[in-house]
């Protein structure tokens, strides 16, 4: 298993946000996490990235215990997150945002990856000298994805990549997720668009108030009555 999480718990002050989280992501898999607003999805991804303290449990990445590893160490190992709400460096240029995505890599490696990102999202190339904050929401999401890919992720954590986007852009973002998947990138995906997130997933977990309450293949969960009722609006 690439990622193994056992008994993970996390809290904000004294308020628990996650408890007893067990999950696994295998190499090359696309695993989705669905859950209502405030269920703790973002908290979980942040804990995996080392920017949210954990109060119990273990996290292993490719066999190595990274429970206490610093955020930059995890990026170096290949755990890369595209955060909720894009979080681009607004006043910096599009190109600088991308270059910073490859902060831990050499200039030559970064240049090579940047060409790939520009080929994937030509609009970013067009706007490469503009401040990231001047891009539209969809373009900022592409930039956030591009910045994440610049780090050459082995495990890509995507937090709500389609949030707040028009339907056509949502489709584009999911097309991009599918393309990454077929290029064998391992992905852990959180999206409020539960139907789409389950449809692309090999496997998925359902999170409710900080606990995992269901797990199964994407297809299974799409057919699950509880899931249908709570998350698919059927």
């Amino acid at each position: 298993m690439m990622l193994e999480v056992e008994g993970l718990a996390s809290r904000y002050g004294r308020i628990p946000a996650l408890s007893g989280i067990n999950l696994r992501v295998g190499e090359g898999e696309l695993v989705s996490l669905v859950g209502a607003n405030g269920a703790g999805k973002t908290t979980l991804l942040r804990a995996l990235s080392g920017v949210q303290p954990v109060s119990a449990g273990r996290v292993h990445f490719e066999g190595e215990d990274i429970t206490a590893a610093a955020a930059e160490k995890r990026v170096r190992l290949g755990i890369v997150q595209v955060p909720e709400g894009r979080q681009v460096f607004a006043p910096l240029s599009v190109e600088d945002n991308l270059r910073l995505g490859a902060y831990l890599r050499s200039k030559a490696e970064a240049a090579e990856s940047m060409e790939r990102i520009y080929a994937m999202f030509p609009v970013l190339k067009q706007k490469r000298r503009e401040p990231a904050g001047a891009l539209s929401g969809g373009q900022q999401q592409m930039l956030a994805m591009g910045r994440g890919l610049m780090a050459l992720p082995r495990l890509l954590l995507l937090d709500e990549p389609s949030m707040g986007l028009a339907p056509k852009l949502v489709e584009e973002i999911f097309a991009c997720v599918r393309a990454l998947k077929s290029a064998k990138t391992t992905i852990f995906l959180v999206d409020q668009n539960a139907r789409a997130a389950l449809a692309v997933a090999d496997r998925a977990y359902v999170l409710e108030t900080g606990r995992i309450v269901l797990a199964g293949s994407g297809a299974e969960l799409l057919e699950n009555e509880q899931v249908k009722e709570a998350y698919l609006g059927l």
Partner: protein
Amino acid sequence: MSPQFVQYLLTGLTVGAIYALVALGFSIIFNASHVINFAQGEFVMIGGMATVSLVAVGLPYLLAIPLAIATAALVGLALEKFAVEPARDASVVTLIIITIGASMFLRGLAMLVWDKNLHALKPITGDKPIAIAGATILPQSVWVLGVTLAIVVALSWFFGRTLLGKAMLATSHNRLAAQLVGINVRMVLFLSFGLSAALGAIAGILIAPITTTSYDVGVMLGLKGFAAAILGGLGSGIGAVIGGLVLGIVETMSAGYLSSAYKDAIAFVIILVVLFFLPSGLFGKRGGERV
């Protein structure tokens, strides 16, 4: 322009450049942590006083000045490591109070290590005034202006062109995203203290031949630098420079044309007026690049 006006302008630019260097120090630390480092003035003092000591034991400026700057930078790094870093999860207000404590501690220490006297440094290259447009300028003022200009150019290259500089900027704009791309944000804060201390020390060394230095010189210079940073917009590099120059010129003009009694009050008035009417300063957050 009357010669008198030119004279005030030159003097104002000189002190203004010093304020600008101190203000840059405030802004760099503010960007890395949102902390206003009230020990910034002590770095200015350490720069000047350490140079005085090193010269007194016989070192030439060529060695004494770099050593004094390094000393201040080390004090800055130690301050971050031993006082700020252990409290990194505390609120910004707590951190600011820590820097106030550190500033009193450093001033007390300076009084013990050195003394309470005023010390003059020799000008770097003589004290024969140079005539310009009916006014005169001291060679030391030329040093102040030239070094400040060089530092501004170097800083804009660092923050605009180097990956580390961009990473420091990125951290100030979005700390979470900076961590997620693998920037060690604690290291950024550590470096910011070292860099700010070095800038402060340079200011303290440059001004000492003009105004003398002493263990408590950092109180007033720190305050002036703070006023300049607020005026320009805390966190803005260009703002710190313009804020410093404007404050220096306004101060000198008012001392010259009105009364020197109010000179030091100008900084307080500027702080109050800006906080009331222009909270983000001249170049604050509203777009543009922050250092």
